[in-house]
């Protein structure tokens, strides 16, 4: 392949859908994937439903991942697996390493689509010992669906975001019977029907509870919970630490691009473009977690913005910088707002750290641009429409809570 016009970092749903659109438009695009196979997280998520929006049918994660890859290849994109980006440099140059050793690649546009990961046990400062058998959902799913291995029989599941229920389904698939599901908050984080799943599987659900300590030297032997009724010790042989998704943004943190301290992902404008206009971003890297279908659609829309950029049809970078003015607001993206008709981001995506009732307001000076009443749970999808025109003055996202 001659010099690419677009380098895509990450072959998950966002990266592959963008690559497909770019290749279909006749652009030379290379996707860099550090894993041995393309497809991203759905590759090791064995259960349904995937693919309804994209392929109009219900698919399993691995089938969906393969379909995304095949579609991109058929469109003419090149996918290089086993290729790790080690540095992002100004102007669209990226350092990579693969079995062939280090090399430098460059393209007029680099699309960052590195996705997300769950917060680790360590980052949550969970107490106790450090035996084997404590892992995130993704690690469990890799073991179960990719390897056909089963790391434990009676784990405790921490967290109740959607992915925690995916972990329960994975357990059921592998014949693993969780000993308990534990949620620090007052209610289940995921959609309300999900709360029936642990009960259907006979898994006790502990709300307003947390893991105080993990016991066991080489393998987990017990998990101690803080519950409203005091300490409870549960016999268990593993812990699944679920959710708390954070952007896989290590490359950004160590580059000239930096990250948004609030959300942990890149700072983008409505076109999905970073301050260095050679870089764009899409998918879960932007925010923490959304569905694969959402990421796929976002990748596609961002591809169209990239096509405009390659044709010199995007407005110059710039716009109003967004300030987020409430501790319950964990994320608001895009962070640079500007004239954005036809832009991939016509809504402001927002996430909360806790349940909130009140009014969400986007203001500029003393002008209220958008206002909405919300009654929302943490980590749930939440957004505001972005005004079609804006001056470059600071825009504030405010939250007024009602009781």
């Amino acid at each position, binding site marked *: 392949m001659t010099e690419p016009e677009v380098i895509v970092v990450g072959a998950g749903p966002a990266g592959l859908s963008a690559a497909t659109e770019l290749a279909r438009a006749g652009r030379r695009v290379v996707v860099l994937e550090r894993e041995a196979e393309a497809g991203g997280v759905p590759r090791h998520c064995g259960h349904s439903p995937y693919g309804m929006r994209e392929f109009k049918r219900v698919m399993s994660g691995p089938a969906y991942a393969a379909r995304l890859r095949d579609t991109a290849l058929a469109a003419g994109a090149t996918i290089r697996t086993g290729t790790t980006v080690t540095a992002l440099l100004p102007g669209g140059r990226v350092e990579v390493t693969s079995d062939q050793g280090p090399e430098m690649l460059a393209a007029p546009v680099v699309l960052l689509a590195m996705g997300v990961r769950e917060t680790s046990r360590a*980052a949550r*400062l969970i107490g106790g010992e450090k035996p084997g058998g404590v892992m*995130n959902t993704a690690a469990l799913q890799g*073991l179960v669906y990719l390897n056909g291995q089963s790391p434990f029989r009676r784990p405790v599941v921490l967290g109740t975001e959607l992915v925690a229920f995916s972990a329960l389904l994975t357990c059921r698939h592998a014949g693993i019977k969780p000993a308990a599901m534990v949620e620090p908050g007052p209610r289940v984080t995921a959609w309300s029907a999900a709360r029936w799943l642990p009960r259907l599987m006979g898994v006790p659900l502990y709300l307003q509870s947390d893991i105080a300590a993990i016991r066991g030297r080489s*393998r987990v032997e017990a998990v101690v919970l803080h519950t409203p009724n005091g300490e409870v010790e549960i016999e268990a042989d593993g812990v699944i630490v679920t959710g708390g998704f954070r952007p896989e943004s290590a490359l950004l*943190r160590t580059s000239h691009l930096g990250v948004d301290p609030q959300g942990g992902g890149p700072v983008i404008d409505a076109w999905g473009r970073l301050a260095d206009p050679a870089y764009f971003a899409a998918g879960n890297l932007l925010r923490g977690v959304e569905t694969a279908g959402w990421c796929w659609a976002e990748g596609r829309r961002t591809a169209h913005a990239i096509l405009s950029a390659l044709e010199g049809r995007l407005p110059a970078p710039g716009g109003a910088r967004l300030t987020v003015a409430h501790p319950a607001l964990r994320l608001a993206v895009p962070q640079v707002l500007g004239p954005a008709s036809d832009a991939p981001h016509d809504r402001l995506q927002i996430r909360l750290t806790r349940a909130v009732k009140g009014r969400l307001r986007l203001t500029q000076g003393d002008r209220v641009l958008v206002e909405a009443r919300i009654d929302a749970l943490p980590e749930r999808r939440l957004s505001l429409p972005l005004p079609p025109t804006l001056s470059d003055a600071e825009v504030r996202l405010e939250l007024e809570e009602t009781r």
Partner: protein
Amino acid sequence: MSDPLSLGSYDVAVIGAGVVGCALARAFTLAGARVVVLEKAADVLDGASKGNSAILHTGFDAPEGSLELACIRDGYALYHEVRERLGLPLVRAGAMVLAWSEEEVASLPTLMAQAEANGITDLEPLTGPGARALEPALSAAVRAGFRVPGEHLIDPWSAAHGYLAQALANGAVLLRQAEVLAGRHSGGVWHLATTAGAVSADLVINAAGLWGDEVDRRVTGESWFTIKPRKGQFVVYDKTAAALAGHILLPVPTKITKGIVVCRTAFGNLLVGPTAEEQDDRDHATVERETLQALMRRGEEILPALAEHEVTAVYAGLRPATEEKHYRIRDDLAPGYICVGGIRSTGLSAALGIAAHVLRLAGRDWAAPADPVWPAMPNISVDGQRDWQCAGHGGIVCHCELVTRREIEAALTGPMAAGSLAGLKRRTRVTMGRCQGFYCSAELARISEGRLLQPMLEHD
């Protein structure tokens, strides 16, 4: 040997494969002895040596005139002497001892005088602003301090691995899952019963760390000291935080502990710790959220910008302290028996010095190999080239720490092949980065299946 369970007879049996045991194995092997190392765990460095602050100390604050000081000084010099040939890293960070109160400022002159008496002559006094000129991320609350240029950072594990690898390359034998159960001295020879079988040796060296007193009892029938485990908890920050401190930032030490240190690691992270907590349990070292949060607060008092950085890992280690502060090294408990006990937090710095001291104590003559082998350890630190920078590495498996398939394969083969996931982590850094195994656990389980003494996943 007629005994079917006999695992052979040796000149020297070293009990315990911590950093001190590994250094002893090397020193005696290079002196020409046939050495066997007996380790009860599935891998080496599984006790006190698995969690420390990875600083190569000069000995500036060690007790004047002590054996500990002599061993640290020797160990420090010997590390510099052997490190290039063994492929061991050295990050020349230098340390700053910082005073945060008037009381601490008042104790600085005594500390500096002690350091000079200990032979460290390149100290540089620092005013508060002087310290901040060198380390701009330091809090403005710092009053004064002094700089110890010779304090450095090393890899806490590759040093010990390197010592043992050299012993094994020159004829020593490592037996794992070989816990010493009893000893009997007859006809000038020690007969040790272990969980792996019987071993005999002319000289037995107890380097059993946290179990030093127990091994004394099992082999000689009595112990002359009691281990009082002292736990240290640590917080490891993301690599982005490493830019906040070039120097090792030390507090003014107390009688009990060197105090909470903030320093980079040889792997490019930033470390805050340890605590010093007395406990009876020698097997279990737990972390506690409240303590970790207190460490983080202390870290932020020293480097306010630390608050913006993420925590990558947390861990707890146990130091084999005893009822007395000094090293408990003795050769007069039983014939042909040397106890090397009570090597607390300075063991990493002093190991090579301790080994040289014990070799002199043993006072025996063997035929030293004329041209010993010097196996070089693979570099996994920031001090030098990494495998991912060279072709043919087979791809990256651990993305956060850029650990290659070739590095993992190497760590799973040879006489010192990893015996457990923890051992594989210490040799390669797999799963020790930001994601803590989110991405690579499944791949690692595939690669290591059937190849670890203590499997990553246990099946019945």
